[in-house]
């Protein structure tokens, strides 16, 4: 289990030390593939917990880690083409930072200790902040500053929440530990006022990391200015492991008998995120910022599903995978569009389907998938969440869910169609930045996966989602 954490770290060291600007991106590829192989090995062998129970490949890790690993490997291939096109920029920090990020995300996914979890979340922030500044423009600097400040605040509050949890278990008969297994076993021995207060701080902290409204203020800026590849990893990987962290917190609340309180907060925040995304999605002039609001929306959907529990929670676990993969398609395709037109304004970009015969249609297909059109897999996970809401008698929640989804479909569709359709003649163009195999094939692979999961969901995967939902209290 340590291999999947240490291998990317070692390669990050290699990347920082490597002198060659041209060969350095290969470290990403090697790191991505080694990680993928390591995760596949974990999946097959199902090893026992490591490091005294601090790391475990539990059902929640099973949901998020393979998806993150696939996403990273695909992005690593994409990076080979992307970084070749940006010879003007020093890629030392970029390559090294991405590998550190992979290692940190792996620790978050596997961590069974709330303190270790917190340190790893902090590391994901620190390793990505300099990457947002990759373009070295004033705008990307502003985005990096906001990202760092807002996320650091969130993380500091999450630490306070973690301390509250530790204090809740410090009384007589308490576990005096931050291991999830100890905390859940202690159950009612935990001091419930401190669990409640701790949950609020942890929700704010990890909610900031996920980008739930109203804590999302860094998201449009960071996703808008970051290179597409980083956007894909932030929106698909980092936010997903943030969600898993929140799910672990909910697991403790459930064990302490405070789940009703936690669930109401989650449902409220989830609906608020969807509503806010719907408002800002309409008439958005910048297609990368539009994707950021889509990410806010989907974090809302995940939180809502987690809050509803039962079948909806299993749907949310499925949706974590679907959202991660589809966000990969969208951000990588958007990155190709941005490169080719030299602009991410809706006013400048048109006729993408004709100029970029792979990325243009992929962007459209990604939009259809993310807004929940069949036969793509997000349709099935969103349907499962809706089903869970209605089955649990939450008719108002279900109705609001549908209303927000339709508004977002229309709002996002108007923007996407403007970009994809039409005649590209006269639109700004950067020469020699058309579709190439290295930049167009990676999102295509992810899209195929999304389609495949929609058409056929193996029983083995389905039981993982159910087990993960059961882990957080069903």
């Amino acid at each position, binding site marked *: 289990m340590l291999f999947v954490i240490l291998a990317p770290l070692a390669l990050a060291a290699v990347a920082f030390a490597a002198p060659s600007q041209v060969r350095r991106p290969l470290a990403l590829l090697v790191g991505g593939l080694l990680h993928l192989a390591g995760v596949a090995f974990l999946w097959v062998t199902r090893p026992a917990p490591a490091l005294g129970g601090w790391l475990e490949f539990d059902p929640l890790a099973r949901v998020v880690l393979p998806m993150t690993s696939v996403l990273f490997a695909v992005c690593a291939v994409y990076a080979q083409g992307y970084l070749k096109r940006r010879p003007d920029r020093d890629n030392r920090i970029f390559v090294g930072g991405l590998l550190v990020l992979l290692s940190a995300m792996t620790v978050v996914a596997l961590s069974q200790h709330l303190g270790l979890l917190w340190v790893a979340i*902090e590391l994901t922030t*620190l390793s990505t902040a300099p990457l947002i500044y990759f373009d070295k423009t004033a705008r990307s600097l*502003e985005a990096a500053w906001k990202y760092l400040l807002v996320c650091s605040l969130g993380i500091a509050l999450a*630490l306070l929440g973690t301390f509250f949890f530790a*204090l809740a278990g410090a009384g007589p008969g308490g576990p005096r530990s931050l291991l999830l297994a100890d905390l859940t076993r202690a159950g009612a021995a935990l001091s419930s006022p401190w669990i409640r207060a701790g949950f609020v701080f942890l929700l704010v902290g990890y909610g900031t990391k996920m980008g739930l409204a109203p804590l999302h203020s860094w998201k449009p800026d960071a996703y808008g*200015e970051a290179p597409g590849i980083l956007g894909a990893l932030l929106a698909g990987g980092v936010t997903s492991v943030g969600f898993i962290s929140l799910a672990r917190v909910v697991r403790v609340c459930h064990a302490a008998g405070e789940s009703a309180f936690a669930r109401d907060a989650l449902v409220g925040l989830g609906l608020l995120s969807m509503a806010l995304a719907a408002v800002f999605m309409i008439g958005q002039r910048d297609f990368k910022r539009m994707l950021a609001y889509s990410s806010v929306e989907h974090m809302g959907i995940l939180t809502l599903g987690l809050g509803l529990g039962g079948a909806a929670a299993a749907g949310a676990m499925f949706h974590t995978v679907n959202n991660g993969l589809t966000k990969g398609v969208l951000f990588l395709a958007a990155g190709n569009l941005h490169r080719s037109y030299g602009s991410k304004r809706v006013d400048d970009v048109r006729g993408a389907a004709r100029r970029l015969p792979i990325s243009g249609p992929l962007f459209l297909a990604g939009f259809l998938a993310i807004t929940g059109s069949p036969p793509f897999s997000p349709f099935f996970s969103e349907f499962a969440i809706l089903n869970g809401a209605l089955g649990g008698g939450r008719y108002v929640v279900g109705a609001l869910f549908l209303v927000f989804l339709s508004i977002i479909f229309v709002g996002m569709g108007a923007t996407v169609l403007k970009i994809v359709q039409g005649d590209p003649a006269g639109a700004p163009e950067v020469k020699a930045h058309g579709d190439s195999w290295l930049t167009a094939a990676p999102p295509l692979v992810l899209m195929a996966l999304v389609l495949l999961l929609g058409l056929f969901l193996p029983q083995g995967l389905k039981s993982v989602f159910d087990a993960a939902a059961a882990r957080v209290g069903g």
Partner: protein
Amino acid sequence: MSAWTEMVFILVVVLDFFLLASSRLRAVIRAAAAQGALLAVLPLLLATHATELGHVLALSIGAFVVKGVVIPWLLMWAIREAAIRREVEPIVGFIPSLILGGVGVALAFAFSSAMPLPIPEKHAFIVPTALSTVWTGLLLVVSRRKAVTQVIGFLVLENGVFVFGLLLSDFMPTMVEAGVLLDLFAAVFVMGIVMFHINREFSSLDTEKLSALKD
């Protein structure tokens, strides 16, 4: 001994108010450094027979070096490089932020008296001091325009979290305590680098100019 401990807690809260009221950046940095140094004394004063001496010393010396010396020095270096002296026109004025700070302290005391402490043998001032300081840090971050003041706000917030952590120092693994100091250092370090670039890019450390991105 107990009188000294109470004195330190009270001084930490007094410094919170000073931080909110002062406009000269050098004074603010010095106050934050003084608060950091005071916090370094707390693990020694609060140590019981249950705490191991090694942990107490590590926490105390670590806090003194990082919070009291290194980070204030970095901040002083940053304002010298950028030639800025005071916080002009904060988003929330100095008097209103003092009042808000006072409200925060009152709320912190109300909150901590409402919450039963699972370990009653611990000092009763820990929770209210921690929460007041966290609140002060948050206020500084959201109500000030200069990047340096926002970083100080973040530091003060971390100071508050540190005070709270003292409740747990008997049984929490060292890793979490070390993580606090390490992450704090790392965060400010990265912030410092970014600030350096802000300086070169905009020839000022005013985050108000960072406002091209909005909807």
